[in-house]
């Protein structure tokens, strides 16, 4: 424990783990989206300007007005931006190097944040790889993969 010296005083240290299995109520919009993922379908929601927001939010991303019209979008899309995760951290969807990416699904007008398994470039076409066991979480999408 006392591993360093500072001014002659050995320093104490200890590991501290802060963890909790948080409960999150979803409300009807997020709930519908997550229910859809469990069923291997993706929902968006129509914004005040008619654009489809995906993943869907209860409110418009600019004005905050309530949104109610959920619509189904595709499970393939286009990468709008990406960065490379060389050293994946605990909890990230993939434990090997991968891309963090923004993906605009077909039929949606905004991009979803997720990961792409394998190398990728802006403008690439990608599709959802579903998790084998799905429970209604964003991680029901295991990753996206490039469409060759």
């Amino acid at each position: 424990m006392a591993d360093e010296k500072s001014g002659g005083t050995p320093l104490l240290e200890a590991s501290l783990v802060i963890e909790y299995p948080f409960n999150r109520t979803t409300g009807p919009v997020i709930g519908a989206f997550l229910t859809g993922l469990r069923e291997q379908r993706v929902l968006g929601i129509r914004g005040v300007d008619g654009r489809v927001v995906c993943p869907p939010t209860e409110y418009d991303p600019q004005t905050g007005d309530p949104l109610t019209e959920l619509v189904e979008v595709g499970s393939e899309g286009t990468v709008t931006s990406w960065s490379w995760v060389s050293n994946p951290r605990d909890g990230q969807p993939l434990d090997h190097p991968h891309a963090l990416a923004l993906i605009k699904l077909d039929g949606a007008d905004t991009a979803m944040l997720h990961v792409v398994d394998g190398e990728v470039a802006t403008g690439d076409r990608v599709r959802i790889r579903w998790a084998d066991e799905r429970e209604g979480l964003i991680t029901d999408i295991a990753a996206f993969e490039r469409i060759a």
Partner: protein
Amino acid sequence: MPPADTDTDRTVSEMPDGLWSMPQPTVPAPIADVAEPIQRIRVPASMHYRYTPGTAPTRFLLGLAEKKILGERDPVNGDVYVPPRGMSPVVGLPTTEQVELSDHGSLAAFCVVHIGFGVNAPPTPFVSALVLLDGAATSVYGTLLEIPIEEVRIGMRVEAVWVDDAELTTSFENIRYWRPLDEPDVPAATLQGHM
């Protein structure tokens, strides 16, 4: 009988009309009809930190490992703080002089706990005590045992019961509990401002 108990109108008021609530969304057919829609999710989060208590608490904890209670003195007012956090909170200046305190003190305040928390909690009911060590300006927390609960009183004299020397670590848990000393009580008024 207190007047409140005579209150016989026990109807629960109703919510006002016309309050805003979130409009219900329309859900496309394949999802709308799914059994057991998601309403609540469980998302575990685990974070790892490397905790360092700081210079003054380290000095204090190293003292505890040697069975010493080392308070630290306010450089302006002379008050001795224990456990020290490195600062006099009154003047906002670092405490630098360590002062060894005895493990005898006076019961400054207490309550009787009927629901304990954690593996170290004694069997309930037990007395959770604030002990003002002789020479200190603020009290330390502990459990008071070896006395019937109804005999516990503010101002009574107490002493620390330590773990065996072989079990001493850099932890306040070195003091297992406090027990009564056979000495006259101190006046409760002298403890005000120091609990």
